[in-house]
């Protein structure tokens, strides 16, 4: 049995692992099979992570974090968690390969998943012109017309990135005010290939085998227009990944894992949460990393409070 299992391999998970490993807790980190490294694996240059004045590529940053966590004794497993039992003194975590791991504490840092528009043909055309990842799929839209849906930093980043390939990039946003930071907005607005379509929502996606266009509804006057497109990139936000803990941990009205004040303590003793799974507001690599630190320190504090007989069951 372990002292701590960390579920998730974004900045929150790896930072929690660095702290827990340096505290000699020999953490086991379940990184996922195909999403190891988390959201930053799908980004390009990260310019706002302190300590990298020239920026760093997102995937490189995550590989560095993993190396730092492993250096101090974190064991990283590239598999997916299929179920958890978080009640009781000993928590169990079951993986896709059938392995069952036990620990006295769990840090839950599963992040968030892309939000869908909720349109009929969105899933059918996903991978056939509908995408949630410009850095993955932008390459295939050379000299094409594409659109990004959304008004946040991710939408601005995707739109700017897509101009490397596409001839024309529309940004479709439901209001006339962007949520994106000023620097990201300015960069997108200065780009001659980008055109903003404000006060518009996507009503329908057209396309037999591949996306051919969308119909847009004006949120002010209700008029409908169509737009011919080859690609539709959706960047309208994320929802916390909490499906494995439904019914076990208390959630907030926003769907995040509820924690006590500024701590990482969830509604169950010995279970801690970190990163985007408890934060729909800030969602930065740095805030997730900080949140991972909080969780690791809370784990140390909790373990110190446990009776000796329990602690002795956990191997170092």
């Amino acid at each position, binding site marked *: 049995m372990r002292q701590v299992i960390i579920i998730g391999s974004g900045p929150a998970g790896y930072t929690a692992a660095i702290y827990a490993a340096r505290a000699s807790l020999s953490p086991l980190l379940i990184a*996922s*099979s*195909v*999403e*190891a*490294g988390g959201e930053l*694996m*799908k980004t390009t240059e990260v310019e706002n992570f302190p300590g990298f004045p020239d920026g760093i590529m997102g*995937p490189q940053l995550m590989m560095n974090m993993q190396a730092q966590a492993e250096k101090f004794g974190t064991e990283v497993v590239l*598999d*997916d968690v299929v179920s958890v039992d978080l009640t009781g003194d000993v928590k169990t975590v079951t993986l*896709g*390969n059938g392995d069952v791991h036990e620990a006295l504490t769990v840090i839950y840092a599963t992040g968030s998943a892309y939000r869908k528009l909720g349109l009929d043909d969105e899933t059918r055309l*996903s*991978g*056939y*012109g509908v*995408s949630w*990842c410009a*850095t*993955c*799929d932008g*390459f*295939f*839209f050379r000299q094409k017309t594409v659109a990004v849906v959304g008004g946040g930093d991710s939408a601005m980043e995707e739109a700017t990135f897509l101009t490397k390939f596409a001839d024309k990039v529309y940004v479709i946003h439901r209001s006339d005010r962007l949520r994106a930071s000023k620097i990201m907005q300015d960069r997108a607005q200065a780009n001659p290939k980008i055109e903003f379509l404000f006060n518009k929502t996507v009503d329908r996606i057209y396309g037999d*085998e*591949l996306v051919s266009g969308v119909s847009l509804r004006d949120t002010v006057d209700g008029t409908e227009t169509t737009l011919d497109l*080859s*690609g539709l990139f959706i960047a309208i936000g994320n929802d916390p990944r909490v499906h494995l803990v439904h019914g076990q941990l208390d959630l907030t009205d926003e769907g995040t894992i509820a924690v006590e004040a500024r701590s990482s303590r969830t509604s169950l003793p010995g279970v801690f949460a970190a990163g985007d799974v408890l934060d729909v507001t800030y969602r930065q690599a740095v805030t997730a990393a900080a949140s991972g630190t909080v969780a690791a320190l809370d784990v140390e504090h909790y373990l110190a409070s446990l009776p000796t007989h329990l602690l002795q069951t956990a191997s170092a």
Partner: protein
Amino acid sequence: MSNALDVTDETFAAEVLGSDKTILVDFWAEWCGPCRAVSPILDQIAAEHSDKITVVKLNVDDNPQTAAKYQITSIPAMKVYRGGEVVKTVIGAKPKGALESDLAEFLA
């Protein structure tokens, strides 16, 4: 590194379309993180079912004609070919179990 054979625009017709075996083509690129994640999983599936399916890789950067012909707009894209025809398409990196169930009819 993957053990899978690399196919190209030049060899695709002979190695894939002309093969009498069931061939899974993994359309991938260096810059595609999810491709790197799914590659070892495909290697495992290939090793465990070598009598049923052969996995080959096509780099979309180096082989744009084949990628365009099969209308690839998202990678990793995994297409199963039999007798020169696409009989199954799976898009996106998935855990091993999910890929195995997507490909079940070819692995049994």
